[in-house]
């Protein structure tokens, strides 16, 4: 069709044109400006991980070496009660924290969504713990869980003399004490994200549900909740990364105790590269910690690829 465009003196123009330069594909300044990013992405998140991986196959002690011992460190890792308990603990901690956090967070968000007059006040109260460090959180709750002077004794003095509430002193319950502290610190964030999600739901959905006579709790649970996948996922992922990294709060609250009741993989790694001077073992533990993250990323990749294929099919 382009014959309609005139091209009478094309030849003349082409002949006078200078030789074509190489394509300008990037700007040098862009690379200069992002040098820190290049160094971080490649140097830290690729090369450091590769080194961790390599050293996990060596018998490095205080300093790294390259005496390869095959899968030794991994075998020893999984033979260690301390590690296996750590893994069990982090799963228990993770599931409890996530469930408590998401359920309590959604409840708070829903209640906050009832045209509360003092919304800003309540929001400030629910969210302020997040501004405090997990060390502070851990220390406060440790103090409140003190068996002799904490909540337990305060309630007993009110006359309820056999009241039991000192989770940290008991091996079986210590981890739930940590969960409570963690939820206290982080649930406000979940609330804030989910409340934003609730407010983002199309207002006409509410009108439609109201006209259909659907009770509000049903609307929240069966209509609105599935519509805010984005906010839910955001809050969920945020909590997940917190769980994998859980360290500060445990150190502050229990130092992994009593016994090994609240020992965590993150603590295991740090202990092995500091006090226990066994870098090889620490690195094996660290690389194992990376596995669930990689699994999730691969899973997400597959899901995305699948979704893309479906989309293409639909077209």
């Amino acid at each position, binding site marked *: 069709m382009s014959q309609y465009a005139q091209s009478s003196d094309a030849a003349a123009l082409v002949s006078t044109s200078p030789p074509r330069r190489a394509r300008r594909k*990037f700007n040098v300044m*862009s690379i200069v*400006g*992002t040098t820190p*990013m290049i160094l*971080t*992405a490649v140097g*830290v*998140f*690729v090369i*450091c991980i590769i*080194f961790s991986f390599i*050293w996990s196959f060596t018998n490095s002690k205080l300093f790294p070496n390259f005496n390869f011992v095959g899968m030794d460190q991994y075998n020893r890792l999984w033979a260690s009660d301390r590690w296996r308990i750590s893994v069990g603990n982090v799963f228990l901690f993770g599931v409890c924290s996530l469930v408590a956090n998401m359920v309590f967070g959604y409840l*708070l968000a829903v209640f906050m969504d*009832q045209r*509360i007059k003092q919304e800003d006040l*309540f929001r*400030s*109260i629910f*969210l*302020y*713990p997040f*501004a*405090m*460090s997990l*060390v*502070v*959180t851990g*220390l*406060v709750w440790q*103090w*409140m869980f*003190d068996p*002799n*002077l*904490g909540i337990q*004794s*305060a309630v007993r*003095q009110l006359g309820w003399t056999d009241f039991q509430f000192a989770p940290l002193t008991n091996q079986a319950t210590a981890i739930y004490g940590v969960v409570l502290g963690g939820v206290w610190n982080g649930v406000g964030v979940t609330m804030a*994200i989910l409340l934003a999600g609730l407010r983002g739901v199309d207002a006409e959905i509410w009108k439609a549900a109201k006209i259909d006579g659907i*009770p*509000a*709790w*049903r609307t*929240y649970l069966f209509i609105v909740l599935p519509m805010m996948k984005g906010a839910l996922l*955001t*809050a969920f992922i*945020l909590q997940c*990364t917190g769980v*994998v*990294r859980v*360290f*500060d709060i445990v*150190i502050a609250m229990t130092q992994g105790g009593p016994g090994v009741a609240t020992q965590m*993989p*993150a603590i295991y790694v*740090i202990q092995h590269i500091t006090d226990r001077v066994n870098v090889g073992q620490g690195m094996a533990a*660290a690389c194992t*910690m*990376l596995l669930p993250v990689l699994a999730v990323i691969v899973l997400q990749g597959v899901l995305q690829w699948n979704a893309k294929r479906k989309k293409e099919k639909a077209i």
Partner: protein
Amino acid sequence: MTSEALSPATTGASGAVEPRGAKPKKLTIGRVGVYAFLVIAALFFLMPLWVMIVTSLKGLPEIRLGQLFNLPAQVTFEPWLKAWDTACTGRDCNGLKPGFMNSLKITLLSVPVSIVVAMINGYALSFWKYKGSDLLFGILIFGAFVPYQVVIYPLIIGLSKVGLFATLPGIVIVHTIFGMPILTLLFRNFFASLPPELFKAARVDGAGFWQIFFQIMLPMSVPIAIVAVILQTTGIWNDFLFGTVFAGRENMPMTVQLNNIVTTTTGVREYNVNMAATILTAAVPLAVYFISGKWFVRGIAAGAVKG
């Protein structure tokens, strides 16, 4: 109860009376339930703060009575002074003061450095992509999910090789590195939300990489930069792990020192001093939180929007 609580009060059967005018205000059971839930939840959130404050103002004998929630019979500021000035960690008895100064130094240096770096990253990733820039960004986002333990040890070795391990510049670099994924994402999303025509117009006007950055983009990113400052100030002040590992004894931040003071096993446990120290450590981020108000919430929402 809740089902009624959540549905806006249905008009009562009016019977003989024709409804007219404004709907009469009613205090339904549902409404009471909503507030009851929120107030109880608020009490749960406020309890630790209350306990911290009253404990820090009591003398040790009063604390030993075990009345955790009671107001102090006799208010004393002794624990605060001790926590700040003379509390001991091992043999050092200088209180939290040095830790506060260290945290101040670390935060004041790390916040601007990490934000400037991330801002340029976000800008370049939005407007000046180059071959591989998206891949780098992908790696960076992956870095946001990586357990720190996987990179810590090689990073220790690397930093000591260049003589930066356990130094102030070293800890600043570490904070810049680990703040980069979230901050870069924050700024990239911000710049990506600007109309691309703005950038095109500046190109037609002849401005280059740095001119567009400094003259057009930087003045526009003040709001998002405030969010980043809040995010980073609280994040870096509250950091414990990197402080323990990378700061060294000379630059030990307040959180680490607090933990050492509280968990020190020698002598009598002075709960009031511990709580005073805890409040002092939390004071700066709490102040940032209460001053910034809505910005803080925005920061969380913005920082949390991943992938």
